[in-house]
């Protein structure tokens, strides 16, 4: 339960922060949630990771669907050297997930100090 709540909270907080702050605010969001909702390090990581993977890949997927994949085709070719919008969505999700996961671990470890 705690795991699900912290995952949802992370996704929500990161989205809201993203409205006002640069992209790296996801690290702050994941850190704060992990600090507030205590979990073991690996659980905190997973929770931040899953939250941002779902948030970023989901958001990217919605945008790309509305855009009919037009830009994702071009950017995937540019960055990944292959025309595959889904791969770009996956890489997007993993990028956010990694940052949030690490930030959440940091938050969970900070909690132990406090």
């Amino acid at each position, binding site marked *: 339960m705690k795991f699900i709540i912290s995952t949802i909270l992370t996704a929500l907080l990161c*989205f809201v922060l*993203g*409205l006002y702050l*640069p*992209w*790296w605010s*996801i*690290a702050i969001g994941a*850190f704060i949630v992990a600090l507030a909702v205590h979990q073991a390090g690996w659980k905190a990581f997973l929770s931040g990771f899953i939250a941002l993977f779902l*948030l*970023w890949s989901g*958001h*990217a997927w919605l*945008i*790309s669907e*509305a*855009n*009919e994949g*037009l*830009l*994702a*085709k*071009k*950017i995937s*070719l*540019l*960055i990944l050297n292959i*025309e595959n919008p889904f791969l*770009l969505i996956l*890489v*997007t999700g993993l*990028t*956010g997930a*990694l*940052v949030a996961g*690490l*930030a959440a*671990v*940091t938050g969970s*470890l*900070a909690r*132990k*100090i406090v």
Partner: protein
Amino acid sequence: MRRYLSFAAAALATIGLVYTLDSRQVLPAPLGKLLSPQHGIWQNAEPANQSFNLNLSFPQLSEPVSVYIDERLVPHVVAQNEPDLYFVQGYLHARFRLWQMEFQTHAAAGRISEILGPGPDNRILNYDRSMRRLGMVYAAEQSVKEVEKSSESLSQYQAYADGVNAYIDQLTISELPIEYKLLGYFPEKWSLLKTALFLKYMSYDLAGAESDLEFTNARATFSQMDYEQLYYFLADSLKPVIPNTVLNPYPTAPAMNLEPPADADSLYFSFMNAGDTVSNVPENKPNPENGSNNWAVSGAKTASGRPILANDPHLSLNLPALWFEMQLTTPEFSAYGVTFPGSPNVIIGFNEHISFGFTNAGRDVKDYYEIKFKDGTKSEYWFNGEWKKADKRVEIIRVKGQQDLLDTVSYTLFGPVMYDDTYRADDQAERYLAVRWKAHDPSNDGRAFYELNHAKNLEDYKAAIQYLTCPGQNCIFASKTGDIALTQQGVFPAKWRRQGDFIMKGTDSSYMWRGMIPVEENPRMINPERSYVSSANQLAVDGSYPYYTGTEFPIYRGYMINRLLDSMQGITPQQMMELQMNDYDAKAEFAKPILMRTNPASLNESARKYFDLFRNWDFRKAVGAEGATVFEFWWQQLQRSVWMDEFEQTDLMMPWPSEFTLVESLKRDTAYSFIDNISTSQKESLEDLLAQSLNLASDTLDKIAATTGLAWEKVKATRVNHLLKVITPFNRTNLPIGGGKGVINATAADHGQSWRMVIHMTDDIEAYGIYPGGQSGNPGSRFYDSFVDDWAAGKHYRLLFMKRGTTSDPQIKWTMEFRKG
């Protein structure tokens, strides 16, 4: 302790990862910043059903402005006064084309290394230096001063800049055009100088081309007789833009003394003088094919009895396109056509009374003078028997990832000393070459477009084009009331024959331009008896015009347009659109009798096959035409076989003869002296060269046949590249379109019809047009390249010219309301 350590380790790892994904230090791109769906490139992915309805308010506006946007994303702006109109024009240009506007002005100002770095072998930095040293920024500053003298122009340009800045001011990081995100920089505020830079870039593109340094090399290499044979400019099949007729005669004598200087024979026309050469000719030059077609037929030749005007400017094909379609309306006027993002006004188009268009005059208004400096400080130069002080201008070139480069340029009364000891024209000799360029002179050329947008009749047109000084243009005109006109307009130097084709003496005034040709002596034609006017960058006049008009002009497009218009009657707009797409190759027609002299017995097996392909070809550079490919490669090889031995006498760069030179020379004389290969002992004949060159071309043709196939459009492979070229997914390539160099549809590989327009001057104005691009500059928008396929298919769109007072139309999809507030 361990807790603290693991916390610190995790915190460091997080910060390290964020840094990695936020910068370009570790990965080539800041992946986090770019891929964040709320900030990065995803935000540029415009929904396919994007609405462009908007309500905006700006304190700069005095009255409401409505913008009706049609299904092709063309904005129809209706304002109550001009400052409001140009404010909104600036806003909309920025909304749809901001990155391109700024990039092009950076290119004009020599500031590309600032965003892209110095480039491989300093290519980009050298480009920037060439633009700075040519005095592009200096020229733009001169024209800003001139604009500031006219309160109307000043308020127009200021309103436009305010509109651009109103957009930039409210732009968020997530809305930044994608190129800024990918390259990692931000837009600057717009200014009058930026608009002036953009217009100067057009001067550079259209009146910045010359081959004077290369011709200087050719003078050193060839005898005068050979030189005149290789580089004659009055082609036999030339149909000048304005013929000399009894009813419309040229001036009989020049308005000033145009005797060449006394020492010209010994000094200037010193052929085969091996010492006077330059090893480093300019690397960056405007595309030599920059040109256009335009024509207007009067009511006497049309089915409706009303004039029809057509114009298709041939420029580099890019995405985002150079052009942006708009309709601009106030209570005073309503103009429609293509605009330049970066400048107010409609540039090529029509209003409720008249239509107007341009082709390039191509006159040489850029010459070089050899300067003698007193010493290495380059602060004093010898002129008319005394040392004169040179001004110095320090160009600060910012280079991404490097120190700024300070480049000092001396300015003489000729102009900037572009080439000196730090920017060398020649590897051996230290040469100081000043550029005299008409574009440096103060002028307010943009005013010509403003006045044309407002023009109601022939007299207004005549007055409007007076503002055009450089680049010189063939300004075409047609009115509802039945007038047609064409003027080669510009302020052109009055030159003696071949003045400025070579580097000139700069130690005194003897080789300076003696003055400008009086504007009323510019070639013009108003309502001619033949009932049409036309131009296609050919020489405006024949040899009886009393001023030298320069060299290097194409002739075949002009020849074909006149040949076809001469015989046409009862013309419809449909036929004019077809004429724009005409792909008949007149040069091939003229070349065929020569090529048919080939003895098939001297051809190898595959060459014989290609010979038959050529023989059965109908001279059309059409989609699927294999004969066109054979002709192109065969003719190029024949030119090399004829001339390469003479050109290989030196390593110096020299101009290749014009497109008509070989075909006309061989028609005149099959024993053309250049046929003999000077590096062999035997005497070659034309027949030897014909067979030899087709045999040689066959090897290349065999390879092409085995890869892409011989179909003309496959070999030509027309493409429309993104301005940065290197972001290949933003390019459109392999477009199936015919045409090419030297035919009316001048669509070459990356250059061609940048806008096709046909205007029928009926009561409501029946207008057609298309350009190879799309209204949006955003590669993530469906409007980025939405016209490209129709353009390649040779189509034109029927343009929606909204009538005054209408606020809706079935084609209007969205509305933007601008208000004071």
